[in-house]
């Protein structure tokens, strides 16, 4: 049912599918939608998530049927057919995905039927029913993976014991998605593993297709991709290790590394050596840290994975005091919320923060007003005003980030945790 979304932290299902598809190299979405959807999606995800343009296609370079009134009255599958025909001529690509928007979704234009026509001609054209009204960005991320599993992934003859799929970080939507994927890849590779990241290192549709060969899915999210997790297990025999968000800092990252090592039965000596070297690297820098460590009582606002990881790091590893943690994901399952709250309240050192779940900016701002002793606000550009009001320092780390450019910055893992500390001690 309609509810107030003040300063929404995401786009729609279509936007989420688009962000996911366009992060695959040489894969082109074809919008069967009104004229504004793609611009709103591209500006909404890549643009408001660290101020970038999409890599290969996005915004003005994305095919779209630009449906207008007569298309809604009469249907517009012919128009989608000729648009797809044209796309095959003008794009040098490995795959095309026909995406339905609200308009084609409501009038019942069957994008799947057009994809089928092209597949029968041997073309790599697929379809995803993705009208925006199905949900927010994360819903689209999940829809894209459901489509990959239904239409792209092929069964494997055998699993490769050193190959893992790294899942759970949503491309474009998370401002640090690329850097964070790179840091986790770096750590996993140090353990002798090869990593399917799908969205970095020029990976693409072929890596999705052969992802069934992996020995393990490493899913770094407290709640995303549950259906993909089940499908990988049931249909392709790939088990998953679910971690409640990308680990941040030495303590949680080391626990993560040990969990991966145990699950895949990796050489214990190698795992412990990597841990020792990485922790030494981190603490050698932290040893040169500025004075006055514990003078910050902080509030944090953002997606569940980031809020969990950063809160645990700052409380457990860096002796800061969490006052309130506001989780903005549009979540509906109570057990997801309970699991997230547990992660945030079972801290080794600090007093647990108040945990709040809300997507509405007005409620977020009202909640932040209750914590006037907070001196550090870690959140999104939406929360900047709250920080100004209470004279707290502000560090943007969660969507939307419209006040800084982000390329390959990581704020997670071993090395990223140092960058996060750098950011906290910048513009003091």
């Amino acid at each position, binding site marked *: 049912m309609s509810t107030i979304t003040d300063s929404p932290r*995401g786009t729609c299902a279509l936007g989420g599918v688009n962000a996911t598809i366009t992060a695959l190299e040489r894969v082109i979405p074809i919008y069967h939608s009104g*004229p504004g959807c793609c*611009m709103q999606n591209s*500006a909404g995800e890549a*643009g408001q998530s660290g101020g970038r343009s999409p890599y290969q296609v*996005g915004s003005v370079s*994305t095919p779209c049927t630009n449906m207008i009134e007569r298309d809604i009255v009469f249907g517009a599958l012919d128009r989608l057919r*000729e648009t797809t025909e044209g796309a095959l001529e003008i794009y040098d690509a490995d795959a095309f995905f026909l995406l339905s928007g609200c308009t084609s979704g409501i009038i019942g234009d069957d994008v799947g039927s057009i994809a089928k026509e092209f597949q029968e001609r041997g073309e790599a054209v697929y379809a995803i029913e993705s009208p925006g009204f199905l949900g*927010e960005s994360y819903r689209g991320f999940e829809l894209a993976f459901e489509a990959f599993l239904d239409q792209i992934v092929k069964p494997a003859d055998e699993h490769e014991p050193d190959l893992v799929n790294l899942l759970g970080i949503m491309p474009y939507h998370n401002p640090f998605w690329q850097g964070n994927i790179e840091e986790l890849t770096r750590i996993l590779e140090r353990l002798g593993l090869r990593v399917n990241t799908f969205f970095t290192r020029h990976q693409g549709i072929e890596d999705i297709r052969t992802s069934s060969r992996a020995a393990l899915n490493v899913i770094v999210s407290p709640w995303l991709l549950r259906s993909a997790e089940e499908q990988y297990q049931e249909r392709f025999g790939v088990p998953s290790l679910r971690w409640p968000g990308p680990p941040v800092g030495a303590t949680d990252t080391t626990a993560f590394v040990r969990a991966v090592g145990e699950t895949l039965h990796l050489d214990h000596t190698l795992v412990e050596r990597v841990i020792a070297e990485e922790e030494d690297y981190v603490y050698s820098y932290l040893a040169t840290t500025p004075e006055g460590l514990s003078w910050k009582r902080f509030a944090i606002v953002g997606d569940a994975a980031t809020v969990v990881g950063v809160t645990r790091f700052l409380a457990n590893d860096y002796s800061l005091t969490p006052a309130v943690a506001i989780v903005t994901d549009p979540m509906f399952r109570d057990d997801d919320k309970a699991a997230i709250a547990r992660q945030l309240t079972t801290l080794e050192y600090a007093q647990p923060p108040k945990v709040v779940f809300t997507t509405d900016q007005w409620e977020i701002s009202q909640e932040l007003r209750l914590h006037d002793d907070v001196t550090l606000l870690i959140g999104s550009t939406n929360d900047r005003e709250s920080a100004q009001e209470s004279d707290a320092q502000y560090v943007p780390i969660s969507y939307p980030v419209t*006040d800084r450019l982000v390329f390959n910055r990581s704020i997670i893992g071993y090395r990223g945790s140092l960058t996060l500390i750098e950011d906290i001690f910048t513009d003091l």
Partner: protein
Amino acid sequence: MSINLNESSVGTRENRLGSITGYSGRLSDLVERSHCGTLGNHERCFSQSSTCNSSCGLSQLAGIRDVAVINHAPSGCTAVAPGIATLDRQMATKRGVTTDTVFIGTDMDEQDTVFGATGPLKDIVREIYRRYHPRAIFIGASCVTGIIGEDIDSVVDDLRDEIPVPLAAIHCEGFRSRIWASGFDVADQAVMTSLVKPPKQRSNKVNFKNFFESARDEIIDIFSNFDVEPTFLYVNSTVDELEHLSEAQATISICGTLGTYLGNALEEHYGVPYIRTINPLGVTGFETWLREIGKVIGKSDKVEAYIAQERAKYLPQIEKLKGELEGIRVVLGMGPGYTFEVTRVLEELGMEVVWAAAWHFDPNYDNGAVPPSMDHLLKNGSDFKLSITDQQNYEILNILDHYQPDIYLSRHPGTTVWAIKQGVPALCVTDEYMIFGYRGVLRFGNSVLDTIRNRSFEKNLAARSELPYTDWWYQQDADALMKEEL
């Protein structure tokens, strides 16, 4: 032509003005056929993403201070609201004022598409009034509300007695138009029908329609020479200011596309003269525009004195700059209110317009006349190649590849990056005042020179990045996928 203020909706540019988004040819043909009324549109058998009138219209209204914009739509249609809110707050801070405007969505879901959501919408309007006490509330329609037939006008009527501030339904369903500029008209209709009051007296104000008022101080300074005070619209406007638009001495717009509806509506209904000249870009534009304003407000002598004084200061510098700009080959892509003004300035400065693209084209404005910039160009002997293309990136990149200009000038976010990846230096003319007046000409000319003299980034990036288009496409004519004219 008649502007109807008894309805909340206003016709699209396509229906009202015969505007088009597909054409390829020459300036002379376009102008001639605009005059004859024989200009038709070319559809495309392949198209790329355009932009909708909803995001255009609602973001215009969100620029007004201390109002609420409620987009009755699925979540994604309001996705860029946080970015717009940030920008508007920055604009307010820059000017030393504050804005408490909120731009919210109603997050329509699948169930709403079946059962409708006018009930929840009413509750949302009430709650938004309770929370923020805005000075006016604008409720936007969307593709979804349009298709399922949500009656937003009735919601407004039902709430009118209950909510003590102006309410307006904004008919900006995304599928109405491929011309996002239709959104300017929708926003103007809301302002005219819900805020503007009949005049009680004439003020010393002039209505100045623009985007982000970056030349605010400069313009206030210029107009102080003529004893009038500009009211800038809509970024940082207040509801009080808008209520008195009908009392102004004139309406001026920095862009003909932006101003046509409001300017003509205020003239037709309240007798506020709308200044219809070429725009104040470049020397000829600036002087022609100022002289017409002087005539309308009865201050021609003061305008002439001002022009003489500024000419003495700036013309020698501009002449010097011309020598350096001579012969630079330009491709440009902008909204029509800029394309056919900037081309004039380019030629005035000795540059060569190799190809001009406009995101749409209005063969006439709301007074029924062909845009003045078109006749001006033709009279001065211009006749460049051009296309009307709603941002079609594949056409633009084909043109850039074919003509290899020295620079690509664009006026739309997200468009120059593709030219740069193809190795063409590009300048995004996002500031509407970049070429304003004498000083703007100097600023613009120097920016062009800066852009083309150091091409290291374009060269390095193009050598290492792959664009998605096939070699086949680059061998075609840019209009190869346009259909026959309708």
